[in-house]
């Protein structure tokens, strides 16, 4: 049985955040401008996009629920 859409989005969010946190961890090992740029341009955006995907999955599901509950029962 396929997973619900919200769970697939949560999984995607987890993947993005996980990759972002991993890249951030790697940059901590190294005091160098490239580490700084990698943190800023790779780690932070991945985590930020992951968080947005997660929040969107919550909002989108709630709005779908809200729309379906507002439909009259036949």
């Amino acid at each position, binding site marked *: 049985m396929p*997973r619900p859409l*919200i*769970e697939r989005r*949560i*999984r995607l*969010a*987890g*993947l993005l*955040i*996980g990759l*972002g*946190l*991993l890249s*951030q*961890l790697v*940059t*901590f090992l190294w*005091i*160098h*401008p*490239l*580490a*700084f*740029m990698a*943190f*800023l341009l790779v*780690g*932070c955006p991945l*985590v*930020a996009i*992951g*968080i947005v995907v*997660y*929040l969107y999955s919550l909002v989108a599901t709630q709005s779908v629920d809200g729309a379906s509950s507002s439909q009259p029962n036949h």
Partner: protein
Amino acid sequence: MNLTVFVEVVLAVLALALVSLVALRVELTRAQGGKILAFTALFILPGLATWVGFNGQMDRAESTRFCLSCHVMSDYGKSLYVDDPSFVPAVHFQNRFVPRSHACYTCHTDYTLFGPFHSKLRGVRHVYVQYFGTIPQPDKIKLYTPYNNRECLHCHADTRRFDEATEHKKTPTMLAEIYSGKLSCLGSHCHDTIHDIKDLQYATFWKERSPHATPAH
């Protein structure tokens, strides 16, 4: 590993562990407790870890090691060890008038990443030039704007030794002009030997004692 890095790593590892748990066992989020776990793992902890990590990166970017990590800056690093009291940065570095671990940033507070938006863009450009552009000769590197007396005065201002120095009272208005920035500390034939990396080939160098050595009793 210092405390800041330790906290950064612990937060990131904890966040990573919880994110992995939620991503691999996503059906956990169907229960109320799983929803709270997902919110913590996918919103609170990654946000906190990134914020703490960003502050740590900014702190590391102020370090002397960070500034000197590009090859083009190595001569400027060497100039801090010149055994000649006329070299202003060397005197400050060797006598711990500035913290050795943050020597560059203490006197160049508005340089690249730490200045206003234009300075930050310049910092990004420096990284680009380092890897993809034509790196200038070290002696061709100049400040973008004349050195501001503010950098000297944030330590020297209102100190007795500075205010009462005869060199600063050659004319009745000299001290006021220094404070107002009309008279540059570096460009008035007073403190005009700064990094002077062209002269390094003729210089002798001070050897720093091991930072962990204890004084003899």
